[in-house]
């Protein structure tokens, strides 16, 4: 009989259960895994507070072994401000989707960056309202078909997507702004480094830090599940370039 030996856990230790209710092919769990691994590696899980907006990713708060606060749609960065000011030594992280942040809560994230709040805001951007079943957000790329842009987002009719990372990079209070993705293992690993840098800079008191992660939503994009990663590269990445938009010198 061969003895089984665990080489690597399938789940990060900070996940109480892997049983999320998200669709096959969803990129959010992959993105969130990078965050949990960073918190574990930094050894800060016992001083971290997660502030979560409303969207599919709300699942991740429920499953994670982290003190967490569900807030109103779009208001995460403002709520996190109150948390951080009362707990200056805590690691405070907000989690939003593009509907939550770029549509509903654009003012909150911009003002929080302006104040240079020592919090890290994460944007899981899949370019649609996934939770409602595939509707257009302020970050939906031109040409993307949704249930409210049936023939694809048309600038004449629907206007243009807002690139919140580029906006944030212009704000002095933002110390770190980066955009990653999770469509390949390599891209996920690169994104994890961005998340780590953002949290380290928060802990160093550098200012507001921000990581946008492009994630797959084959359900909301109306493409086949296996096509999600490739579709992300063809559609979203053509609009939203990957990399660090703003970072202090090392």
């Amino acid at each position, binding site marked *: 009989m061969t003895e089984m030996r665990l080489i690597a856990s399938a789940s990060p*230790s*900070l996940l*109480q*259960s892997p*049983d999320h209710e998200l669709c096959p092919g969803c990129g959010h769990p992959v993105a969130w895994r990078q965050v949990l691994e960073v*918190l*574990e590696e930094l050894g800060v*899980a*016992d*001083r*971290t*507070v997660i*502030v979560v907006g409303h969207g599919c990713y709300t699942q991740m*708060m*429920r*499953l*994670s*072994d*982290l*003190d*967490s*606060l*569900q*807030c*109103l749609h779009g*208001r995460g960065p*403002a*709520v*996190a*401000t*109150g*948390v*951080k*000011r*009362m*707990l200056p030594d*805590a*690691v405070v992280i907000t989690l939003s989707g593009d509907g939550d942040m770029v549509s509903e809560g654009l*003012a*909150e994230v911009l*003002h929080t960056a*302006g*104040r240079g709040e020592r919090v890290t805001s994460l944007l899981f951007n899949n370019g649609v309202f996934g939770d409602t079943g595939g509707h257009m957000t302020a970050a939906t790329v031109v040409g993307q078909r949704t249930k409210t842009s049936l023939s694809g987002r048309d600038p004449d009719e629907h206007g243009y997507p807002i690139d919140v990372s580029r906006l944030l990079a212009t704000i002095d209070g933002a110390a770190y702004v980066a955009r990653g993705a999770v469509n390949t293992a390599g891209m996920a690993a690169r994104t994890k480094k961005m998340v780590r840098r953002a949290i380290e800079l928060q802990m160093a008191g550098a200012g507001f830090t921000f990581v946008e992660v492009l994630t797959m939503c084959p359900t909301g994009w109306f493409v086949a599940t296996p096509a999600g990663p490739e579709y992300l590269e063809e559609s979203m990445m053509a609009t939203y370039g990957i990399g660090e938009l703003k970072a202090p010198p090392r």
Partner: protein
Amino acid sequence: MTRTLLQGSEAVADAAIASGCRFFAGYPMLPFTELLEHMARKLPAAGGVCINADTEIEAVNMALGAAATGARAATGSCGQGIALMQEAIAEAALNELPLVVFNMARGQQDYFQATRGGGWGDYRTITYAPKDVPEAIEHTQLLFHLADLHRAPVMMYGDYVIAHTHVGVSPIAADFGPLPDKDWALDGSAGGTGRARQIWTWARGKPNTPGVGPDQHWKDVAAKFAALEETAARHEQRLVEDADTVIVSFGTTATVVDYVVDELRADGLRVGSFRPVTLWPFPGVALAAATRAATRILVYELNAGQMLDDVRIHATDRNAIRFIGGVSQDSSGMRQGDLLDAGALRARVLSALKEGP
């Protein structure tokens, strides 16, 4: 006892800080502005944080975040700005976060806003309406206690007069008794223990610590407010025992009512007054008792008739009710108008008396 001459806003700020308020966020808007100014000046010295927020929505959500850590937190505005905060006030009720909200109102047209609220869900907002600065100080201290005791948003309905009047005030002791531990508060320390905490209006919990879920949680919250409705009302009444006419008013308007009641009593008229100190819960049982023998219940509020609804709900004889108030705003729009005046009220009371029961 030493008395210090303070503007009402400063006295309220002092009372909030003395009550342990350590987080305050607001967006400037008269007549709330001075409270924000005093907090900005005084709270940092007390080890707290005051943020000049960029919107009322951000202010109230910042306060919610601070409250979630267990800190005593407050925000405020006038009714126009508090209109923007309704969603977050409801959220505080439904996820059971203690939050103190100061409405330094421009008048009396926020009664429905305070007592009915504009957020979603089965919640109510405990609302105290002081008649003057000393009472505003007392209410401020009590409200921080009540917010923690009931894990709920609470409101003080002040106004321009309270915010701007300078009054000699004395520090008062404020011990309202023990409070339960805030074992629900988030500080991050439960992370990685397998029993991390969660604050969520749906109360679904986490896999290791399942919650009751939204249906049961919202029933529990509704039951909490139903119990408070029975027990938490406060009122003040004067000379109602033999009164055939009882004037009902709230807030600073009640000081004018008391003055006119004394005048009319001196003229031999059997007039008394009743004032809900808490707008919610409305002291309905007390109102019914105080007006049982009266043939006239005169409702005097400076709006189109909002508290009037609560008087109609609770008075035993609805036919005795006459509305003698009305919308009354001065030309600046920042404060009550001509009806906040003893002569104006006296004329309306005498006119109602002439009409007979």
